[in-house]
């Protein structure tokens, strides 16, 4: 019935029509309608590959629905609806269009059945999303946006190059499990790795998300990285060396998160850390692990969005999201505080919250396959997450020392969006089977065993006790107005410096050369003019006798050649 309807096209059509609808409630409602319409084909279509066409002699599949792509496109649709609801009050056409196009591209990419289609949507997410950063319209956000865009497009270009090489190596453009025997697949992996914020490739994430608008950050948090997780799960499930990469990803961001002042940036570090869990799941690659990854991505999108929403609401009302300037907001923003705590509980994997039922799958999968070190790291990272996201975010925003700020409660649409999201977080935690039923593989997993619940509580409580102890002893680092160096230093400070030097050097050499060339050209011109110019020796009007001399010389030469003779 809806064979012709591609969800991504629904979004794009919506984005295209938006500017023609008067800005206001009508448009805001239309925006909310789009994700709902987009859900129709997703829910009604049977699994399979449709909407295929031919390009350059290859068949492209734009709509491939199977269990894996279904989970991701479903959660993308949900996230789109919730974040757009959160952004209901925004009247900036640019942001509205960008948000719809961005969500649509992400869904399109999740449904892509071949590398070309994937590339198209992959770049689509890059282009559409950067507007959410630029929409802040400051010098800082412009520059951040440029950096973000360059890295995102680099990812797409690497993907394209990888696809080209892969195509020539295997003769196929299909986007299925890729073998790392060819060079192409490595390129593709690198491309996914950039978008997935692999260690050392990660810094675009922390750099850009906090630079977006209040609502933009929420939208950004849902799609790009999870799309990369999907792509990795599709192409590289069971690739062993992803496990150490994922483990590293869970680990290093939490250190940064502890000392970071900007709460939205804290959340991006925590986002990076959560991605690490998923990457480990993909690396393990067992059915349980992939299920865990999909489930974790699903719940992660929700609770991370919830956290960004609540911090965003604080920012919206107070004008800042810096830990050093906040505190005591629970008095006037109680609902926001509650939702934030729910999000924090979810990300910390408290039993009965969504994080608990998904993250534990990954840990179990890793443990089951005997990855002991990895398991230890993940355990540490879980505790760390609670530390910086679960406690730090609500604590410094809403409690801690009273900043004296008395902002009004968030507007109704934000509260509603947060409320719905919070509801979903709890619902998933309480009734995990609903989520389990749509996972890529059949689930035989019960998170609520006594061992699991008790050990999890032990871990979390003692993390909290550690936090309390450190706070009370004053060891815990205070929130300070500051920035921390990260890998972005290499391209924000080092690269410009190096380039500046190189440019200085090259241009000095060049201008020397150019001056030399100009001088010698002038010299040649002058010499020529001296000889050939109107007054020059060659062109002068000379006495006739001079000519006769020449005549004699030439005659002599001719006679010489003729008589004495060269051979």
């Amino acid at each position, binding site marked *: 019935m809806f064979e012709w309807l591609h969800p991504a096209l629904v979004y794009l059509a919506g984005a295209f029509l938006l500017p023609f609808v008067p800005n206001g409630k009508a448009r805001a409602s239309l925006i909310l309608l789009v994700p709902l319409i987009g859900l129709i084909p997703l829910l009604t279509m049977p699994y399979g590959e449709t909407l295929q066409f031919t390009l350059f002699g290859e068949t492209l599949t734009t709509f491939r629905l199977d269990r894996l792509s279904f989970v991701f496109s479903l959660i993308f649709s949900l996230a789109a609806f919730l974040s757009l609801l959160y952004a209901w009050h925004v009247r900036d056409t640019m942001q509205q269009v960008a948000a719809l196009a961005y969500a649509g591209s992400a869904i399109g990419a999740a449904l892509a059945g071949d590398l070309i289609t994937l590339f198209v949507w992959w770049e689509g997410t890059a282009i559409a999303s950067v507007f959410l950063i630029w929409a802040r319209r400051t010098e800082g956000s412009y520059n951040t946006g440029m950096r973000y865009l360059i890295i995102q497009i680099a990812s797409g270009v690497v993907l394209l190059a990888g696809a080209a090489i892969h195509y020539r190596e295997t003769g196929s453009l299909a986007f299925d499990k890729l073998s790392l025997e060819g060079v192409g697949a490595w390129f593709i992996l690198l491309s996914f790795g950039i978008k997935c914020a692999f260690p050392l490739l990660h810094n675009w994430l922390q750099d850009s998300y906090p630079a977006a608008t*209040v609502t933009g950050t929420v939208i950004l948090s849902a799609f790009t990285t999870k799309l990369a997780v999907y792509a990795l799960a599709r192409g590289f499930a069971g690739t062993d060396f992803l496990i150490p990469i994922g483990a590293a990803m869970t680990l290093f961001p939490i250190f940064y998160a502890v000392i970071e002042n900007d709460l939205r940036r804290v959340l991006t570090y925590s986002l990076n850390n959560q991605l690490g869990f998923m990457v480990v799941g993909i690396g393990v690659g067992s059915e349980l692990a992939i299920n865990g990854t999909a489930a974790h991505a699903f719940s992660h999108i929700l609770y991370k969005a919830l956290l960004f929403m609540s911090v965003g609401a604080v920012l919206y009302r107070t004008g800042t999201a810096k830990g050093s300037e906040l505190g005591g907001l629970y008095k006037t923003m109680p609902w926001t505080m509650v939702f934030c705590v729910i999000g924090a509980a979810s990300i910390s994997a408290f039993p009965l919250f969504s994080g608990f039922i998904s993250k534990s799958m990954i840990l179990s999968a890793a443990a089951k396959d005997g990855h002991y070190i990895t398991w230890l790291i993940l355990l540490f990272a879980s505790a760390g997450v609670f530390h910086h996201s679960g406690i730090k975010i609500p604590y410094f925003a809403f409690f801690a020392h009273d900043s004296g700020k008395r902002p009004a409660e968030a507007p109704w649409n934000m509260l509603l969006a947060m409320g719905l999201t919070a509801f979903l977080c709890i619902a998933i935690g309480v009734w995990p089977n609903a989520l389990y039923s749509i996972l890529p593989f059949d689930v035989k997993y019960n998170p609520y065993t006594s061992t699991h619940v008790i050990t999890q509580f032990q871990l979390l409580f003692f993390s909290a006790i550690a936090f*309390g102890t450190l706070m009370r002893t004053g060891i815990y680092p205070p929130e300070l107005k500051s920035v921390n160096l990260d890998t972005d230093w290499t391209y924000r400070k080092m690269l410009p410096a190096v380039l500046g030097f190189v440019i200085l050097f090259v241009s000095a050499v060049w201008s020397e050369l150019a001056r030399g060339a100009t001088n010698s050209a002038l010299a040649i011109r002058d010499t020529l003019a001296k000889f050939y110019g109107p007054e020059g020796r060659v062109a002068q009007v000379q006495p006739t006798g001079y000519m006769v001399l020449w005549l004699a010389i030439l005659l002599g030469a001719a006679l010489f050649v003729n008589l004495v003779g060269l051979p």
Partner: protein
Amino acid sequence: MAKKKSDKSEGVDSIIVRSMSWVDDRSKVDKFFWGVVAVGILLTLLDLFYHKHVYFETENIFGFYSFYGFFMCAALVVAARAMRVVLMRSEDYYAPQDVEAEDHPEFDLDRKQADV
């Protein structure tokens, strides 16, 4: 409509605020902290009373999760504090190419004071 809504939710708001007001009282916070410690110890003791399903031997150590959680978190914070010495820079380190040094633009905000 906005008016009606705020009327309706006023009650719950204040309940939440009232129920959390202990955080501003130092002695109550102390009590809360020790309460958490107590619950933590109780949870650790639970280890003695049930059969753990474990993947690794390490898990069978008594109170493994508790100790691991506590010490690793402490180590995390100490390490992070040490990192600050090396990594921390002033807020305008990257300015003007950075958002840290600038205020969030007003058009994207709706600052409202609550009626206290």
